[in-house]
């Protein structure tokens, strides 16, 4: 017998059990992770033979450097004379030294050569796109004076040193025969224009001299960077702190020159940091692996050590990642507590660093201070109080390691860190691929919500006039200055309307920021390509992006500096507005539009306001997707944002009225529930609901009606359906009696195959909407199941499909509508995105074949499962992501499992490792309980596996789409024909490739939505005598057609059929008759595919079996055939086409036969 105390104890233990179970799960996950990491590390490992060859060359290079003769004490005149007749030019930074005031001396003495960077640290990986071996050549101290850090002197000395080295290496390469395959080029180190270096590029040319070939390192994809360093302690480091002035312009010794200072100071620390990292690596077993993980993570997100001052996502590459990690191994917490421990696994080191990035603000709220000489026992500390620029300050070297990282790039970095940290904590889904393997940088339009090009006219007069002497020393280049200027304007102007942004300068439409783009020949002084365009790439905050008012400070009696600043920033757009609480506030008011997001209007205005008319929006092709959404035929549609759901709300209001009426009715059985299940209730109709637009195929919105439980429902289908109809007749009568504003009529419903007895009550409301009521009873399910068991074997599959259809239409639809409606309030772009996706599918004649619930679930993936991207913030982004997901979905092997919940709040403070403790608020508990659990996830996966066992090739069911609502995964995808599924995949592949190749413009967008009619075996063109565009609720381009838009229902309900689509029934019967051998497709929404909405097509795809020239003649072949010989027949396509032509002659205008 069980001891009661023991039992009690056991109960107490349960919460701990859960805790342990959780930890085990965590550990398990990291074990899986470990396996994946090991495999990944193995794959990216450098090949030994490449390392050997590289080392061989580096030794040779060292020897050659030793051969270069000393050259000292040269004046600028000497330097100019020396290089005057040489190929090599001195890569002086701007401003170039002038003869009259350059009294210091230049020269060359043998450098101290050391391998730095990842190759030196042995953390390098094989990168097919190429990477670098960094070699630091430290100039001897004799070449410098104490004050050389001022006024570019050190930099110019470096440049002459570099040029002299280049000149001699060029000669030596020639001498040793290396010039056959080695090429010398100048480059800016990390794109910093103050820091020219020499890069040695190896070409795949085979030399005749086999000995020389041993030095050819082309296959390793490495280039060698020769970086000129300044000795570590030559200058007083304090004088180069970010707030100090080191470039004197006239009497100004105050204006800080942070960028310049960083450039000088960082040139002195190459070896220092190599030693620091090397020591840390020695102490930390998994440091190397974690560094590689960091490197991969960053490069998949487009981050590098390049400066981000000139645009792009730079300033945080693997070097900065390693330094941060090293710093966190010796503190980093608010109290100096260690964030990482030396014994951590690579996974834990990586995760800890990501968590730190995600949770600690290093810019506005505080910064991290560390010591890079390990002899110091003071621990590194997070200090409250930030400098409004990302700061990782090294007390030892006085260097802010994040100087190259702009606040805007840092903002994006943090977004990624927060997202990755969440992925690392995901115990349900395997996120390894999303974290390390997906390269998110391939297509800007997928990565960012909005991509806009702003043309900056060639002379850039207004910018040049702003780029005064102070700006020149602060920002160094006009490009940096411009980027900074635009960044500030965007940050201030768009505020919380966006999550982040990236800028990029372009010249002749080419990006300036490619890794290799800033090389220039050794004959040139500098990299000269300018820029004529700035590309703005934005991550939208959908919750705030379309708000109409930009609120500024309250307007008091006195003009405060804030008000002054706000007014200056916004110029004439600023006005005073009184708000509900009585306050008068300085604000800007914007207007929404169906085609242009508010964010774009603001950008256009504010950039022009600050930079003058020279800046103009050049390309905004992405926005054209907005124009593709059918515009509803209601007043003010043009100025209604795509995020506005008011037309749906109107329909819902109308339903609510009807709902109340029905519930008040006295009926033989009282109503238990009235559940709207139509797609308008979940905001997913292709066409927005418009009053009286009864040609819209979605006009009648489905409603499921349930009466209170009764045992009297008949026990056979026909009688059951008729009894249901009897109840509906009662409702109809009562409506007629007491509610004259309402009209109602009965119609047959064909939504459940093989059940021809269903009759629906269609109610037309005075507000102009229509609802289709169907009755659900507790008997239905039993009867459908009974039919399956009673049927003969051959019919069972068909009856199972009937049952599935019933389940989806009467039961699943309730859950589906509720879920989608509920979560789409949090995914603001979902509604327009799914509507555009439906349009795309209907343009390609595919929507006809796909249940809309399936379409809606597929469209939901980019929202609920956005990783490694962000939740779509624009229509085009959402749409392109759907296509991208579809194009990559290998449905034979992968199920689509959706966790249909609202987004988790990105609030970083909420993120906690200790989530299992009692600190959970009720809100989070609720959210967690709604989330798919690991067990549920596994069950779904096993459902998929079971299904694929019987159908490994996906011949019967292709798309497995499961969620908590439907763990079976096949509720909406059974019965789709294989050619349709493969066509969907193929079309999305073509679309994505096409956009990657040709970009997004008028032409490509048009093509994206043009059906490939030539792919079908035959296509009938149809013309419908009555235009359906306006009566579908779609606004027309031709005003004179406006009279056709119905403003009320006809008095006789029967008349509404005059504006219904006849082609729908033509296709339906063709499919019934010839469906065994031909797949027919057609547009479902006739109203939107032509100007008047009176054109359609019926395309036919002959199934492969029936394309054969010889088929054995069988009684049950169900195909119109002609004899070939006594045993064989072939499909008689001519006869079929002739029959169809006769059958559809009232609609058909043309037939196109494709071979």
């Amino acid at each position, binding site marked *: 017998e069980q001891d009661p105390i023991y039992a009690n104890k056991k109960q107490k233990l349960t919460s701990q059990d859960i805790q342990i179970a959780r930890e085990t799960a965590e550990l398990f996950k990291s074990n899986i992770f470990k396996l994946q990491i090991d495999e990944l590390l193995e794959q990216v490992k450098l090949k030994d033979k490449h390392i050997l060859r590289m080392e061989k060359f580096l030794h040779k290079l060292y020897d050659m450097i030793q051969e270069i003769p000393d050259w000292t004490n040269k004046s600028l005149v000497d330097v100019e004379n020396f290089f005057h007749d040489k190929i090599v030019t001195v890569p002086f930074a701007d401003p170039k030294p002038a003869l009259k005031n350059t009294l210091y001396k230049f020269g060359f003495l043998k450098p101290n050569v050391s391998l730095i960077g990842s190759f030196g640290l042995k953390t390098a990986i094989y990168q097919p796109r190429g990477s670098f071996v960094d070699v630091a050549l430290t100039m001897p101290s004799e070449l410098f004076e104490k004050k050389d850090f001022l006024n570019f002197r050190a930099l110019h000395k470096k440049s002459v040193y570099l040029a002299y080295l280049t000149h001699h290496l060029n000669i030596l390469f020639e001498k040793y025969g290396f010039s056959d395959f080695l090429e010398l080029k100048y480059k800016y180190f990390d794109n910093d224009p103050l820091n020219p270096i020499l890069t040695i590029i190896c070409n795949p040319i085979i030399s005749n001299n086999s000995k020389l070939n041993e030095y050819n390192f082309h296959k390793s994809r490495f280039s060698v960077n020769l970086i000129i360093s300044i000795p570590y302690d030559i200058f007083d480091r304090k004088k180069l702190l970010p707030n100090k002035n080191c470039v004197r312009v006239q009497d100004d010794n105050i204006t800080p020159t942070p960028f310049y200072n960083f450039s000088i100071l960082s040139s002195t620390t190459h070896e220092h940091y190599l030693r620091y990292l090397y020591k840390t690596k020695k102490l930390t077993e998994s440091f190397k692996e974690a560094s590689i993980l960091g490197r991969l993570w960053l490069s998949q997100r487009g981050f590098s050590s390049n400066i981000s001052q000139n645009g792009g996502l730079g300033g945080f590459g693997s070097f900065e990642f390693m330094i941060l990690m090293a710093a966190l191994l010796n503190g980093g917490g608010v109290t100096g507590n260690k964030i990482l421990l030396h014994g951590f696994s690579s996974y834990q080191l990586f995760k800890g660093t990501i968590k730190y990035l995600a949770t600690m603000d290093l810019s506005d709220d505080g910064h991290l201070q560390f010591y890079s000489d390990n002899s110091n026992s003071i621990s590194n500390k997070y200090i409250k109080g930030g400098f409004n620029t990302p700061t990782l300050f090294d007390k030892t070297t006085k260097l802010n390691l994040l100087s190259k990282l702009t606040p805007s790039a840092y903002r994006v970095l943090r977004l990624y860190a927060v997202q990755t940290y969440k992925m690392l904590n995901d115990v349900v889904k395997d996120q390894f691929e999303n974290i390390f393997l997906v390269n998110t940088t391939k297509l800007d339009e997928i990565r960012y919500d909005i991509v806009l090009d702003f043309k900056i006219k060639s002379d850039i007069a207004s910018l040049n006039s702003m780029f005064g002497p102070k700006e020149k020393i602060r920002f160094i280049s006009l490009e940096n200055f411009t980027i900074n200027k635009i960044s500030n304007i965007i940050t201030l102007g768009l505020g919380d309307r966006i999550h982040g942004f990236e800028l990029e300068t372009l010249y002749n439409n080419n990006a300036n920021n490619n890794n290799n783009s800033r090389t220039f020949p050794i004959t040139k002084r500098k990299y000269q390509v300018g820029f004529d365009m700035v590309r703005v790439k934005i991550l939208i905050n959908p919750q705030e992006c379309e708000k109409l008012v930009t609120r500024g400070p309250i307007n008091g009696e006195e003009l405060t500096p804030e008000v002054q600043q706000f007014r200056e920033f916004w110029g004439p757009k600023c006005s005073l507005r009184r708000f509900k609480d009585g306050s008068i506030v300085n604000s800007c008011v914007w207007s929404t539009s169906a085609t242009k997001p508010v964010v774009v209007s603001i950008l256009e205005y504010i950039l022009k306001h600050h930079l003058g008319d020279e800046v103009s929006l050049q390309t905004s092709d992405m926005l054209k997707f907005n124009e593709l959404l059918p515009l509803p035929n209601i007043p003010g549609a043009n100025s209604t944002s795509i995020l506005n759901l008011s037309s749906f709300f109107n329909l819902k209001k109308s339903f609510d009225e009807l709902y109340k009426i029905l519930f008040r009715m006295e009926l033989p059985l009282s109503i238990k529930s009235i559940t709207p299940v139509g797609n308008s209730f979940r905001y997913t109709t292709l066409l927005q609901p418009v009053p009286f637009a009864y040609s819209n195929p979605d006009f009648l919105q489905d409603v499921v009606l349930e009466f209170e439980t009764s045992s009297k429902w008949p026990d056979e289908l026909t009688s059951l359906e008729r009894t249901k109809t009897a109840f509906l007749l009662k409702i109809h009568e009562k409506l007629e009696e007491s509610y004259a504003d309402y009209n109602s009529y009965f119609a047959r419903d064909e939504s459940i195959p093989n059940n021809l007895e269903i*009759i629906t009550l269609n109610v037309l409301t005075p507000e102009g909407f229509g609802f289709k009521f169907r009755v659900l009873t507790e008997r239905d399910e039993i*009867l459908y199941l009974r039919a399956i068991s009673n049927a003969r074997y051959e019919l069972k599959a068909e009856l199972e499909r009937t049952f599935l259809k019933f389940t989806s239409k009467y039961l699943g639809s309730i859950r589906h509508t509720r879920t989608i409606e509920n979560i789409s309030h949090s995914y603001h772009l979902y509604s327009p995105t799914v509507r555009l996706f439906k349009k795309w599918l209907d343009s390609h004649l595919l929507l006809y074949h796909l249940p809309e619930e399936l379409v809606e679930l597929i469209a939901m993936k980019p929202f609920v499962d956005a990783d490694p991207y962000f939740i779509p913030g624009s229509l085009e982004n959402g749409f392109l992501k759907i296509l991208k997901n579809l194009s990559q979905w290998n449905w034979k092997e992968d199920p689509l499992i959706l966790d249909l919940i609202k987004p988790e709040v990105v609030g970083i403070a909420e993120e906690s490792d200790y989530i299992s403790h009692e600190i959970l608020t009720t809100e989070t508990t609720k959210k967690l309980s709604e989330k798919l659990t690991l067990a549920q996830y596994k069950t779904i996966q096993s459902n998929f596996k079971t299904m694929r066992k019987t159908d490994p090739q996906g011949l019967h069911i292709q798309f497995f789409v499961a969620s908590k609502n439907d763990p079976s995964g096949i509720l909406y995808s059974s019965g789709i024909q294989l050619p349709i599924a493969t066509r969907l995949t193929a079309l999305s592949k073509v679309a994505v490739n096409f956009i990657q190749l040709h970009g997004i413009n008028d032409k490509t967008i048009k093509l994206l939505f043009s059906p490939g009619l030539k792919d079908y075996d035959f296509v009938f063109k149809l013309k419908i005598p009555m235009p359906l565009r306006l009566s579908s609720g779609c606004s027309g381009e031709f005003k004179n057609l406006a009279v056709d838009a119905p403003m009320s229902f006809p008095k006789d309900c029967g008349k509404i059929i005059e504006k219904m689509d006849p082609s729908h029934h033509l296709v339906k019967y063709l499919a019934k008759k010839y469906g065994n051998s031909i797949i027919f497709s057609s547009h479902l929404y006739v109203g939107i595919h032509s100007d008047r909405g009176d054109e359609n097509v019926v395309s036919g795809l002959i199934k492969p079996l029936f394309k054969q020239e010889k088929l054995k003649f069988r009684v049950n072949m*169900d195909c119109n055939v002609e004899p070939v010989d006594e045993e064989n027949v072939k499909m008689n396509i001519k*006869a079929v086409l002739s029959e169809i032509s006769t059958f559809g002659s009232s609609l058909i205008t043309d037939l196109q036969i494709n071979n």
Partner: protein
Amino acid sequence: MTVKLMKNGFLVIPFILPNNNNNNNNKNNKNTTHYIYIKEHTQSSSKEEESACLFVINLPLLSHLEIVKKNFNKIFQLYNTQAIMETLLYDDEFKVKEIDLNFLTSDLDNGPDKNLTRFLPHNTCLLKFIDQENLDNAFTSLKKYSNDSNLKKKNTKMHTLQKWDGIPSPSIKDFINFYKPLDVEYLKKDINENMKYFEMKEQEAM
């Protein structure tokens, strides 16, 4: 090679389909031939109603009994025969009758075993003649027609293929009538009757 008889015993009966104006791309398609396959129906079941039947495969689109009569009669006239057709059995061109859900869901029916329901493959039916003699006449003529129609162009009189007339072309109105609201009075009546019938059956079952 033209085929008049399939190896499994089906006669090949060709007909020319009427022209229509839509086949713009198909201009030389004037003589589109449609092939019907027939065989005498041997009674596998003991059903009386299936006596004197032709098993027919692949009737042209929308061929109800009157159309079949009209076109087959042309052949019978050609060979101076008469054969009176009574009905088309199991003709279910649009596959709407294949599954009788009511029958399958009802526990009230004490009728035949649900597994023994008669069905024919899609695109086939039985053409019933009033008696065996009429069937024989018909079959003989059809056989001759099949034979002659395949004699190529030597015998100019007999080779001419018959045209299959009467495929209806539904009008726009026909198509949109599918949307037409049901007549409420009719609906009420229908429901009343059905409910009564059901109650009756229910009582019988008890």
